[in-house]
């Protein structure tokens, strides 16, 4: 684990006046499933394209496997697999041929290639669609083909740029499981998404980015510990007089109370038994209430606290 797989220091990238990456720093270690989480336009794709030496950048340095990545770093490129945000396959070639074409750009040996292509098809579950043309595939299947084309050559480092956009839950689960499987087989994964649930589900470490900056980095537990909120209690109620809200606000560990849309929200930081204390109070005042929820913080809360806005708008 000595040299990081990817090391980015002080990366600055401008598109004319627009500052897309602003002194961005990142280190990714071997064996990680690394999540780049950020809203639309935060610079995830730009970061990826800079790492891959597709884009020029204004400042900073990028190392991949300890070496500078250049357009002609064919040895490095051989070990990298990329699944881009936009589907890039040949309309006139079948599923099998598409995978074979892209795999063939990496693997010369015909027999080995055949085996890899078969494995890739199995991996994304497209065997039955082997001879289908891309236009006959549903959106989710097309995404799976896109993935297969990027990973068939068994790369050591895989970039996936929002591979699950506009995909049905079944395909999505298949894709996510696949990514975890690739990781188990030894690949380091860089995964970008603006779906926090996905990132939470599969990523071992996460960077939260917004407006080209890396705002926080860590495991999901670490990220959640960075913020004040540790629990959000939500209770369905018809109404609650204003003075009671102030009382609840003064309970131990509570730092914010809101009443919106017949829901009482109580935000707590730290401590245990917060829910019990709130329910005790309500019963004491003989207030009737409906269902009760207690939610642990999500990455969305982390994002909200760091940037002051929702991850998804």
């Amino acid at each position, binding site marked *: 684990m000595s040299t990081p797989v990817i090391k980015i220091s002080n990366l600055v990238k401008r*598109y004319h006046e627009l500052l897309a990456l602003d002194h961005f720093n990142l280190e990714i270690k071997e064996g990680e499933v690394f999540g780049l989480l950020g809203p639309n336009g935060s610079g995830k794709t730009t970061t990826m*394209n800079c790492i*891959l*030496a*597709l*884009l*020029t950048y204004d400042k900073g340095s990028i190392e991949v496997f300890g070496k500078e990545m250049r*357009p*002609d770093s*064919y*040895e490095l*490129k*051989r070990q*990298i697999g*990329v699944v*881009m945000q*936009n*589907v*890039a*396959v*040949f309309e*006139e*070639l079948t599923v099998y*041929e598409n995978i074979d*074409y*892209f795999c*063939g*750009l*990496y693997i*010369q040996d015909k027999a080995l290639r055949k085996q890899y292509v078969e494995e890739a098809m199995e991996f994304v579950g497209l065997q039955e669609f082997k001879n289908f043309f891309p236009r006959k595939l549903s959106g989710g299947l097309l995404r799976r083909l896109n993935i297969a*084309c*990027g990973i068939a050559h068994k790369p050591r480092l895989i970039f996936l740029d929002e591979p699950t956009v506009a995909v049905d839950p079944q395909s999505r689960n298949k894709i996510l499981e696949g990514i975890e499987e690739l990781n188990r087989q030894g690949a380091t994964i860089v995964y970008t998404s603006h779906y926090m649930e996905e990132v939470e589900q599969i990523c071992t470490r996460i960077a939260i980015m917004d407006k080209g900056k890396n705002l926080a980095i860590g495991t999901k537990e670490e990220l959640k510990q960075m913020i004040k909120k540790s629990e959000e209690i939500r209770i369905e109620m018809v109404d609650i007089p204003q003075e009671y809200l102030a009382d609840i606000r003064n309970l131990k560990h509570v730092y914010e109370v809101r009443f919106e849309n017949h829901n009482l929200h109580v935000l707590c930081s730290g401590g245990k038994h917060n829910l019990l204390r709130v329910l005790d109070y309500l019963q004491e005042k003989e207030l009737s209430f409906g269902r009760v929820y207690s939610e642990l913080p999500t990455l969305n809360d982390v994002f909200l606290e760091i940037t002051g806005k929702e991850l998804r708008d």
Partner: protein
Amino acid sequence: MFWHAFYYYLKSTLRQKENLCWTLLFPIALGTMFFVAFSGLSDEESLHTIPVAAVVKEEDIALKSVLDTLGEAGEDQFLEVTYASEEEALDLLQNKEIIGILHGGSPVTLSVNAQMDNMQMEQSILSAFVDQYNAIFDGIKNVAMTNPEKVEAVIRGLSEETDYNKEITYTDGTMDEMVSYFFNLIAMTCLYASMTGLKIAIRNQANLSALGARRTLSPTHRLISILGEITACILFQTVIVWISLFYLGVILKVNFGSQTGYMMLASLVGCMFGISFGFFVGCIGKMEEAIKVGILMVLTMFNCFLSGLMVHSMRIQVEKICPWYNKINPAALISDSFYALSVFQSHDRYFGNLATLFAMAVCLCVAGFFIVRREKYATL
């Protein structure tokens, strides 16, 4: 890797059935239309003696003797020469009694009447005659300067050559107006191959297409896969043109002459140029694909128009107004190669045209490669 690209390019191209259909249908349908529209026309247009006026001075002995030979009455009389003064000659031309005026001097020049556009074929033959005459005469002058003792031999050669030209070119030649339209049609088909060259360029550049980005990320050198695709593309397009030639020549029985191998070679070089041209346009700038397609369409049509695809006389007009353009207009070069094959027995003009086309194709390809070679982009 070359063959990997080559194989998959051919495979995907052959799969595009509609595309295949259109590429083939285009020359065939247009050819059939031309054929229907022109049938009958070529019979009336069979060659007669061409009436000309010659304005010569005392010292134009060589010209006079050539004109006299060509003007001798008989089976194969080529010219009907009237010697006249400048004014008389112009009068004759105004009254459309002659096709052109030959002005003596060095070089010999030709005037034709632009309003006589029903006589384009005769005009172009005269112009070809004058070109050839001047070329030969230049040759003699050079010889006279360097080896005066050989002049006589050369002059003897000249009169033989003229004889020979007279027979082949002006009476037995298969040149007629209809055939020249077909030559231009073939030229257009070759130039339209530029669309596929354009596609290759776009699909290989990361800043122009997602496919290009994906290929750029692979450890395969881009020039190798581009070269593979261009080769496959040339093969495919050339076969399309060969099929069109076959259809026009064998099914419609358009009289292209008998030099099939040379015609196939000309189609190959024509397609090479077309594809390189499209590839080059695809490589320059970050415009939308549709805009680049538009540029290619307009340029192709414009060049075909100037070379006489729609109006037969355009070619001659261009020759008068800006003759150098006929020397680089790819449509003119391609159709002229076919014309030269059917009219002249020597292949000098034919190979000259092909060499120009080939050189231009190589330049465009290399220029395209240089642009594509840049592999990092400021924006995608």
